[in-house]
């Protein structure tokens, strides 16, 4: 029996299972570590029709097909969220984002966060190249980048990243190069933490939705 908590190593065998009618692709977000679920889902979508009686998997019915995992995953999700709030990695703005997600924009949060990752990595690269330059003197330009970083981080609800950016901007206003370098290191570190945690969040969310969706056809 596969451990349900071992999400990262879990490879669900979906080939012979029915998939929920809702498109699982919508649950997916782009991230560095691809979940193995995806290719299977794609196959399933075209290979099986809803209502088709699915054969039992060789290893037996995966627990998640029974839909019991949905509750467990939701608990995991809440636990992780609470942890992130407690640590200050995320704040209430993230909840606002979640509230904006509804039927008309079902993947709102994941879309926004993806754009955020994309933009932030660009900004971080720019900042680093600016600071690594020996003849660097254009603190204004750095200030502009930082302003954007602050704006987007606060819109996401990334509290710690935003705070580091603010400190970074203060150092930049004082033309303090050493301070800026330190702040950049810290910023990159915080950004990595945020990114990993958000990926984890999305992963759990994805599985939870999957589990919740799976329950539906079983009622027939």
């Amino acid at each position: 029996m596969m451990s349900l908590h071992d999400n990262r190593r879990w490879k669900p065998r979906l080939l012979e299972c029915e998939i929920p009618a809702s498109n699982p692709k919508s649950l997916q977000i782009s991230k560095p570590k691809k979940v193995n679920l995806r290719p299977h889902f794609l196959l399933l979508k075209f290979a099986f029709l809803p209502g088709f009686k699915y054969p039992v998997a060789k290893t037996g019915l995966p627990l998640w097909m029974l839909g019991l995992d949905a509750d467990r995953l939701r608990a995991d999700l809440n636990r992780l969220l609470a942890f992130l709030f407690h640590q200050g990695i995320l704040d209430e703005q993230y909840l606002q984002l979640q509230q904006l997600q509804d039927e008309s924009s079902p993947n709102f949060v994941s879309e926004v966060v993806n754009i955020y990752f994309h933009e932030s990595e660009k900004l971080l690269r720019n900042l680093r190249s600016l600071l690594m330059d020996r003849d660097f003197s254009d603190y204004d330009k750095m200030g502009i980048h930082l302003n954007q970083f602050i704006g987007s981080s606060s819109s996401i609800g990334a509290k710690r990243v935003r705070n580091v950016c603010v400190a970074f901007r203060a150092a930049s206003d004082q033309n303090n190069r050493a301070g800026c370098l330190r702040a950049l290191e810290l910023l990159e570190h915080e950004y990595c933490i945020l990114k990993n945690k958000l990926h984890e969040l999305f992963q759990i969310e994805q599985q939870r939705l999957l589990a919740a969706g799976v329950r539906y056809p079983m009622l027939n």
Partner: protein
Amino acid sequence: MTMEEKMGGSNREDEAMDRFPVGMRVLAVDDDPICLKVLGTLLLKCQYQVTTTNQAISALKMLRENRNRYDLVISDVNMPDMDGFKLLELVGLEMDLPVIMLSAHSDTKLVMKGITHGACDYLLKPVRIEELKNIWQHVVRRKKPDSKDQVNALNQDKASGGIGEAVQTSTSCSDQKFNKKRKDQNEDEEDDGEDNEHENDDPSTQKKPRVVWSVELHRKFVAAVNHLGLDKAVPKKILDLMNVEGLTRENVASHLQKYRLYLKRLSSVATQQANMVAALGGKDPSYLRMGSLDGFGDFRTLTGSGRLSSASLSSYQPSGMFGRLNSSAALNLRGISSGVIQQGHPQTLSNSINGRGKIQPVGLPANQNQNGTLFQGIPTSIELNQLSQNKSANHFGELNPVNNPNVFGVATNFPDARMTVGSSSSSLSTPSGSPLLLQANTQQAQHSGAIGNQSSLGVASLNQESFDMGVHGFSNFVDNGRCHENWQNTVQLSSFPSNSLSTCEAFSHEQLHTNNLQESISWRSSHLSDNPIDLSASMANAGLEDSRGDMQCQISPSNNVIHNIDYAAKQQWGENSSCAGADSLVSGAPYVQHLEAGKLAFNTKLRSNEDFLFEQRKPQNEFSQNNFETLDIISSSMIKPEQYNETGMMEGELGYDAFPLGSCI
């Protein structure tokens, strides 16, 4: 990237009206895609109709296409293609839409800047939905009490005394306006009654068409305000004077309000300019020049004694740019190029002082009576030519019709007006390198010859200083808000009596106006940001202002004149709205005629000449005759159509044909 989502069905407007604030149409501008997306979704959640774009330029384009399509604009402060404050100004002036600023930075200075530029509100990121739920109030607030506000605005403006002291006005004005608005909302309807009622009936109506304040319209507006006098400019009277179909009192009222705000902002900028100028050189002429940069100021300085005129002329060179600036910038945000022309003015001014009638800069009659209307930006060449001829009539008749609404004919009739003009022209040429300036320089050179004894040389040198100063100064002001002051200052300059003495006086007055000039300059520079010359022009104007102030005018009558002019100028500048250069031209023309009459026409004229046309008092010497002639020419030339060609203004303005001194039109 534009995304449009509609809330309602096909009949958007009706639905929006019925369910206001639901369905209010918002345009969101932010270069950060994350914030834009979040903001857009939040606004949708508030049940508004949202259009988003990440480029300020495309936002402007959309707004200009159909200004009735949006009720509110939310804009980020830091954007790569255009400064958020600049967009704010443009939207406020052209489309009269409420604009909310958005920023991650909560710096007090930025918030203050937003308010002075006319923002309805300043939000900080991250934006919360609670804050967005209330933004519809800004739309209602704008729609309703426009007329009511006007009355209060008038009172307020008078109280704050738009002249020179406008430094603190920007904040106080906005506060006052804000208070006024509050009061208005509590008050009963004003005597305008009906119009208000119409508005109140449908406070949320989307149907109210927005008036496009085109250059021509604005010119008329400025002319009307000048005619009435800034303090006495009541929307009703302005409306009657303008005699434009389809224009309501409310439109005029709100435009008047903006114009005043603009002028106040200019005056505060002008003070900075003045300081700069003061720092640069203590020579009067240079100051004069600076002052006259605004076009108005130039006249003043020019009108002063011959030497003064030369000084003003020299300073005018930059003001030539101003002339353009004033006219174009002030009058018309698009008229940035005109601002550039103004630079040319200083030259013309100096030229005019030399007796040219060319008036770009206020034609300071070298003869003293020159009430050169300062044509800003108007072909300095013309002025220079005139100056060179050193005729009594310094009128710079030729205003750049294209650019400078504010061209002030500078009647440099001062025989004394040395050729500081010439020297100034040289100085002019250097900094900006604009053709105008060059022309001005050349003209000045000519004028300097014509100009008499006084500080011609000094002026010339000063001009350079001031001019250089102007150039540098401008850059600082590029982002300044309106250059109301510049206008005012220039106006003051233009009011220089033809007498040299008067110019002295003018100078002193100019100092007051310097602030205005500076402001106007800065305003202009902000508008002319593309034009380096404009910058210098504005600077020059400021310089003129200062120089003028330095010059001690001994002529009492000129004082009066100057006062009047200043007043008029201030009034003119009281309006934030961009003044069409045409206005100045138009106003200049009447002045010219008055001058001929030999009275302090420009006292009254000044009113009408919002822009740089300041007629100078009849020169006491024989130049007066010439002045009058030139004034006629100037006025006629001033009325030439101006085209605000932002990019090409400078070029166009510079391309004034050499205006023969003798041929006062």
